[in-house]
């Protein structure tokens, strides 16, 4: 493990983060947007793991678990909202939601 330089791990995490970010930006379906956010959060988790490995401490891993838990909670509320959204707009297209502007 220690043979992999820390920067590689961080770079991978950053790539993952950017993938998620691009997903948020380009996907119109709300479900995919939520999934992309999950990817971004997991990228952060990966970075924590890398950090934890570097310092040889457990708190990085603890953070990952917290992130996972929180993400789950977020998704739960998120999906409920998606349902309501579908009820109003009969679609999952995020761009439909533009009642308010200006």
């Amino acid at each position, binding site marked *: 493990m220690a043979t992999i330089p820390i920067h590689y791990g961080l770079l991978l*995490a950053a790539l993952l983060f950017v993938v998620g*970010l691009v997903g948020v930006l380009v996907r119109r379906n709300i479900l995919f947007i939520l999934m992309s*956010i999950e990817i971004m959060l997991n990228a952060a988790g*990966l970075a924590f793991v890398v950090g934890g490995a*570097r310092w040889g401490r457990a*708190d990085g891993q603890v953070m990952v678990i917290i992130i996972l838990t*929180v993400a789950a909670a*977020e998704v739960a509320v998120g999906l409920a909202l998606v349902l309501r959204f579908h009820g109003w707009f009969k679609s999952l297209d995020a761009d439909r939601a533009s009642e*308010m502007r200006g």
Partner: protein
Amino acid sequence: MTGVELILLLPLIVLSGAAVAVMLAIAVRRNYLAAFLLTLLGFVLTIMAVALSPGGPQRNVTALFVFDDFARFFIGLITGAGLFVAVLAFDYFRQQRGQFEEFFIMLLGATFGCAVLVASRHFASLFLGLEILSVSLYAMIAYSRDREISTEAGLKYLILAGVSAAFLVFGMALVYAQTGALEFSRMPYITASPDEPLDIIVLAGFGMIIVGIGFKLALVPFHLWTPDVYQGAPAPVTAFIATASKGAVFALLLRLFAQTDVAFYPPLYVTFVILAIASMLFGSWLALLQNNMKRILAYSSIAHLGFLLVAFMGRGHIQSTAAAFYLTAYFVTTLGAFGIVSLLSPGERDAEWIEDYRGLFWRRPFVAVVFSVMIFSLAGIPLTGGFVGKVLVILAGEQAAQWALVVVLVTASAISLFYYVRVVGIMYMPAEAGGADRPALPGLSLQGGGALACLTGLLVLLGVYPGPFLDLVRDMVTTVYAGVLPR
């Protein structure tokens, strides 16, 4: 965990306990009034717990929390805001059809999240607090089921808050990966001397943390969500977002950058200056000709956070006192303003268009006077808390030799005067003849009127005789620097 620590933790315990209690009560029997009263009780007990807790500097509880006077002050402030929001929400949802008891659980939960944020001294508790707050808010924003825009706002907030949380947590990860520190207090001396440039990854990490925090504070350019969410959310929730949520995050920012020196490394410092300037000016310009009261207040809150950042631009007693005082005045003012929007809202929609307020003074002098006081406070007219706050912020900015910032502040204030005065003016115009087709605005309840009177009184007290409160704020807030070696 020692007994002292337990006592210190009491505010958090009471808040979470109240949430559980309300939930259980609802499970037993649905009663709107009972849920409301329980919530009130929870808030009041929390405030008492805050008041009774020993306080002082550096009251660490585990690695995660610190309950020093700084935290006590802001928990008290936020709980107070929660209390007023509860009163507003009680009247607000009574006007609507549906079951709203669970709202109070969310409110207590969100307040709990804020309290956690304020008391955190560790990235883990920071993140947890932030997410508790956010998740509660998603639900609260979308709470008006029969309104399309409420759902829309909830979803927007969900997505954008998720993205920003990802930025925040990724930034934390970068900082952690490079320094190995998750506690704030372990980060101050990352470099040997301030002249030495900071590690680029750490800087990037803090940059991303600022993105996450900037989103919550609605600083330009992370502000785009603000008007939509403010408009879509039920008025009491808007009040909560504008006050408790922002206040807690700002307190966190203060603590984070009081305990670490990072903010005063030139790159981050410049960043904050730019954020402040952009927020002040753009917020004011955006609100200029806006016709929707909630959006006006949203944009004005952007500008106000910019003003607050001016106070943040130095590290000293004056700066933190100014920021805390300003925030308090801003809390009272914003609660009052949204309180009026909320209390005047008929069931089917919010009283959010400024035309709704035409001639208000001649029909409802009390409400109009309260609203005027609130607006004047936002505009920084003397004898209101907002004025003293603004003077303090200017004082803090000039003390930090931020001359450009204070000039921008003044300019932005002048621009913002235009829309504030416009709103006030509308209230004192004669009501137009064709206004009859608008639905009548509901009357005030006893508790609603009481809350407004209370807020107005507070605001005027802060403006007319701020001395004692100023002393209190200074003594409490400066504990945030305790244990930090001067550099």
